[in-house]
């Protein structure tokens, strides 16, 4: 197995707030390889963004406490000096957000921002940087790049701004691109273009991509591996096909079962997960999904570890049910899968 680019071990992030201690991230482990796309899925509030931002040291704060390790190029990001982090951000690890205006400065022209990003990390002339910028804008599919390079962010449509932000993120050929819900606010047609673009750029630059989304459809095409997060924890992890065709956690079944599918005959009634996610201040004992799980039993008050419980070694989950029970019970939620497979 090739050396991972990034290794996250036992990551925990807690925020002290007036209401109590928020366990925003409470046990996340994964490895990221070059040229691979890791999809992170889960409901809102499950800790996806905090995990992503922590990889760049963006959650550092006097009220924040960290545990575990985030090893990048042999160094722990969690304890790295701020000066080294600044080097990494944008240069080696770039981030793409749902709202492009978190990265683009509204008062500067788009091109100028990319030119400056290039020149902050490399010694090239303004002219060269501008030429590179126009090339990048073309690469991300912005038409009339020669003109739009001088546009202000507000002069571009939502889809174009998203592309401009991707161009900015890629301006330094980063090793890792973290995309946090990059297409959530976009229409499907534009989403399809942006995903195709991310995948093409990953292949071209051999970067690794962390793609965060709440939409399993989005990760079904371009991810290689998937983490399912629930209430701050990774509850299931593994190669994409494992997650889709042999899901082990009742929560994963729920996610798969509650999406109406265009490629299948219409269902009478959608499966839904009852209740809502727990407060991260007052997390249930044992399995955090227990209060919403239709299959919970005595043992579930005991905390399940994220370990391998199936034939495929890198497929991990946190559920106490027996393998036979899981494969039988999940048919109630995702029956159609079984009849097709």
């Amino acid at each position: 197995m090739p050396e991972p680019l990034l290794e996250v071990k036992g990551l925990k992030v807690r925020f002290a707030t007036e209401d109590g201690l928020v366990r925003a991230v409470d046990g996340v482990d994964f490895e990221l390889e070059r040229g691979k796309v890791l999809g992170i899925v889960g409901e809102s509030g499950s800790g996806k963004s905090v995990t992503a931002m922590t990889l760049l040291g963006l959650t550092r704060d006097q009220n924040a406490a960290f545990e575990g390790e985030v090893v990048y190029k042999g160094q722990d990001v969690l304890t790295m000096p701020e000066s080294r982090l600044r080097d990494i951000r944008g240069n080696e690890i770039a981030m793409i957000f749902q709202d492009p205006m978190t990265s683009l400065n509204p008062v500067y022209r788009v091109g100028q921002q990319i030119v400056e990003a290039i020149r902050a990390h490399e010694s090239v002339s303004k002219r060269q940087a501008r030429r590179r910028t126009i090339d990048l804008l073309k690469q991300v599919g912005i038409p009339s790049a020669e003109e739009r390079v001088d546009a202000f962010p507000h002069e571009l449509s939502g889809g174009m701004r998203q592309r401009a932000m991707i161009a900015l993120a890629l301006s330094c050929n980063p090793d890792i691109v973290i995309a946090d819900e990059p297409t959530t606010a976009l229409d499907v047609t534009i989403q399809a273009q942006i995903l195709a673009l991310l995948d093409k750029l990953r292949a071209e630059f051999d970067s690794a991509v962390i793609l965060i989304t709440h939409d399993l459809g989005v990760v079904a095409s371009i991810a290689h591996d998937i983490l399912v997060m629930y209430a701050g924890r990774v509850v299931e992890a593994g190669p994409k096909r494992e997650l889709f065709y042999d899901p082990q956690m009742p929560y994963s079944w729920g996610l798969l079962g509650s999406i109406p599918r265009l490629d299948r005959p219409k269902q009478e009634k959608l499966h839904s997960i009852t209740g809502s996610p727990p407060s991260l201040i007052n997390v249930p004992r044992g399995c955090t999904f227990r209060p919403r799980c239709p299959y919970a039993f005595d043992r579930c008050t005991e905390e399940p570890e994220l370990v391998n419980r199936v034939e495929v070694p890198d497929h991990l989950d946190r559920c106490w049910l027996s393998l036979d029970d899981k494969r039988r019970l999940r048919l109630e939620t995702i029956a159609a899968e079984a009849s097709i497979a």
Partner: protein
Amino acid sequence: MTENDGALLEIRQLKKWFPIHKGFMRRVSGHVHAVDDVSLSLAKGETLGLVGESGCGKSTLGRCVVRLLAPTSGEIVFDGQSIGQLRSRALRPLRRQMQMIFQDPYASLNPRKRVGTIISDPMKIHGIGDRQERKKKVEELLETVGLSPEHYNRFPHEFSGGQRQRIGVARALALRPKLIVADEPVSALDVSIQAQVLNLLESLQTGFDLTYMFIAHDLAVVRHISDRIAVMYLGVIVEISPAEALYDNPLHPYTISLLSAVPIPDPDVEAKRETILLPGELPSPANPPAACRFHTRCPYVQPTRCTTEVPELRKLGDGHFVACHWAEKIKAGAIEPIESTPIEPERQDPVEAPSA
């Protein structure tokens, strides 16, 4: 389209243009053609889905229907009464019968009011029942939408997104309306919660005799809930059809490309799916392309008619209408799609939709 005896709502040649003001004198320099000649009808008890990319005019159409907006021209007939040009006082009694559910369950509930008050206010305004009766009614409604009567005295912030949307549904139901326009009611919710709210809306339909206009940009969600679906592009309807027929047999090139872009949560299906990427961007609704509005991005655009003749909605199947001159030929495979270089829409000042 054909007159429908069972129609609860008839929209005829509806237009809604918004003026664009420029400069110091706020001179009107043009118009956003948000809804530009739309005709359709909704039968009693039916769910009509309305889909299309953001900015195509879905919300504007929905708001005209419930008369939160006054149409620029055209007619709206609700339950036999022409309501398009009514003024606010005359609209008052109609408000009971038409309700709207909004996307944002956070913004659409007054944070300073208790849930009980939020749901009972519309009844109070319309002089329905006394205080005791209203309270009882609200408690029943809370149960109907899957909350509990104990929630009566709570504030909206004490609820999750899905629960807030249930409160919005209870408020909409309080006056026993005939028509509910639901504008992206589940778009802001997580998938698991989305399914809860969709199931709720479906289960209420029969019991409360409801007709829905369901607006969404998620095509899988719309198909799940709708009997018929209308596809909008730049202010016009390009295709309208029974739900299943639209997915089994999409006829308008825009519908075809839209459907092809929906990701399916299944890796094997995804590996085979081919997305038809449309060139260019949505042209500005302030200056829509002439003739067929889709011609600047259409992979099947032809040298004749597309740029000179407005395509009418033509009937090509049972209840299936499409506004494309070449639909039959495209369907038969007689016209090859072009791998086109994008035709650039003319640059316009972007017009931002007001947040809603």
